[in-house]
């Protein structure tokens, strides 16, 4: 939509936008370009400026097997937690949208986990997952040693994926429900006059019309899983056991701030930025398309 009525005082426009521009310059554009510079240089151990090393940092990062493992792990984490959260949210939204009795109660009941901090949820789940006295201890009564996220990498991955998915359900639910409610009622009614029952309408009518929302949430959830994961990993598994849950952001933190390898961490940051931009690129296309839609 294009506006036609504008105010004249352009100096005021510049004045109003200045704080925002200033703050994103200092905390966004400068750091991002700085990361670019560091990624191609190596900091001298005794000061004295940075030495240009070209692609060496990237070579070092990419020839590191633990880095590839962390990329692979992040992708598994992103895909599984997003898939789990979105399918649960989609089913719940489709059924909540039928607006039977008690619908309002469910709507509120499913929104609140959005407010919970990732690390706080992680601490709660660490308790639930602990193999001695948590809920999952039941698994160990079936067969001793079946569940132990402190020893088994698979168990630890399962734990962080479940936690992330649990946390993401409500966010997706809000958007799915809103998407469903913006579908014109007349379409649904036309479908039912043609003899489509509830389930049929869900699958053949509502689901296809929800496609833009599904796509939007896919991108958002994937990006979130890259960024939110730090708190969950740090509290729930601390990257362990034996690096089995060391995701990309966590590895940047460990290498850069505990190992003090800024150049390596900057190169890793750059790879991560590239990955996130690549994923978000699709989102931009999607938003563009939506603008034409409405």
């Amino acid at each position, binding site marked *: 939509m294009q*506006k036609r009525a*504008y*105010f004249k005082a*352009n100096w005021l*426009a510049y004045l*109003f*936008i200045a*704080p*925002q*521009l200033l703050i*994103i*310059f*200092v*905390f*966004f*554009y400068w*750091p*991002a370009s*700085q990361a670019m510079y*560091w990624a191609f240089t190596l900091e001298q151990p005794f000061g004295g400026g940075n030495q240009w090393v070209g692609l060496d940092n990237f070579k070092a990062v990419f020839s590191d097997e633990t880095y590839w493992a962390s990329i692979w792990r992040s992708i598994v984490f992103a895909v599984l937690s997003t898939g789990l959260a979105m399918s649960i949210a989609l*089913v*719940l939204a489709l*059924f909540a949208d039928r607006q039977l009795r008690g619908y309002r109660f469910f709507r*509120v009941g*499913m*929104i*609140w986990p959005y*407010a*919970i*901090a*990732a690390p*706080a949820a992680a*601490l*709660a789940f660490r*308790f*639930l997952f602990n193999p001695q*006295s948590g*809920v999952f*201890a039941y698994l160990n009564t079936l067969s001793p040693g079946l569940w132990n996220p402190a020893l088994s990498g698979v168990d630890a991955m399962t734990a962080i994926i479940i936690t992330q998915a*649990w946390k993401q*359900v*409500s966010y997706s639910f*809000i958007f799915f429900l809103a998407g469903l409610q913006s579908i014109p009622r007349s379409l*649904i009614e036309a479908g*039912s006059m043609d003899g489509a029952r*509830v389930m049929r309408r869900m699958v053949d009518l509502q689901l296809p019309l929800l496609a833009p*929302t599904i796509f939007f949430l896919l991108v958002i959830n994937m990006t979130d899983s890259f*960024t*939110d994961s*730090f*708190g969950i990993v740090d*509290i729930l598994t601390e990257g362990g056991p034996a690096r089995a849950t060391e995701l990309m*952001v966590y590895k940047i*933190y460990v290498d*850069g*701030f505990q190992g003090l390898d800024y150049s390596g961490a*900057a190169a890793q*940051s750059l790879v991560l*930025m590239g990955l996130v931009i690549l994923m978000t690129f699709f989102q931009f296309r999607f938003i563009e398309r*939506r603008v034409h839609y409405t």
Partner: protein
Amino acid sequence: MIERTPLLNIVTHVILVAGALLLIIPIWLAFVAATLTVAEVNSPNVHYLPGGELWNNLTAAWTRAEFGVKFMNSMIVAIAVVIGKVIISAISAFSIVFFNYRLRMVFFWVIFITLMLPLEVRIVPTYSVAANALYPFQTILDATGISWLIAQIAGVELSLEWNMLNSYTGLILPLVATATGTFLYRQFFLTIPDELVEAAKMDGSGPFRFFIEVLLPLSRTNIAALATIMFVYAWNQYLWPLLIITDRANYSTVVMELRRLIPGPDAIADWNVAMAGTLIVMLPPLLVVVLMQRWFVRGLISTEK
């Protein structure tokens, strides 16, 4: 629409109840754990009903993590981020939507791109800026020769420094530097009809007056939504405070202290105290979301348009 689907209605209710339970049970169990004694919480059979130790555990967690100061810090940071964000986003969106100047679209994209890279992704370089927030300007002045000029004329070596580590500004400003709010306001401002702007102009209102007396009252819902989202976002920050705060006694936030509550491997696992601490940390954003639920949902959804 009236349909008779008795069987499907039962299925619907079962699915919804199951979903609600799935979301509630983890927190319920954490809450129950927070009401038990150490012995009870460590017994192999899981308790599903609360005991009577809630208050003792809460006070134990409060003193162990020294939540007093930190709770205050979290509040200060969250409220400051909310205020900063609500104001800065509103005026920048106003500038982008209601004025027609050459750099308008450039500025819009410059701001919009920041949506792509969350703070966690560019944590390493942002940290170096926080160590000296004026460093970008110093470099620019050096590169353009202005600092050389100043050194020649005034005889002073120009060195700008503003260390943000271990300070509230360091906790707050980088969180304000994202585009979510600007985008939210822009989407709303675009729906305001041109006629309203023209009517205001005809009545002799300048841009400033229009902003204060027409635009702000109309965007109350958006402001409420943005405030809710930002409060949750700021309160729940974990990685950033962890990096820039080393002076934990004075500047740490409650979410940072969660780590300290994890029972160690050697001591008795006092999960009851840990869970009580978790409840304390969760409560403020939870209250905000539940109270603001109506506006918050509307605001979140309008970002998607």
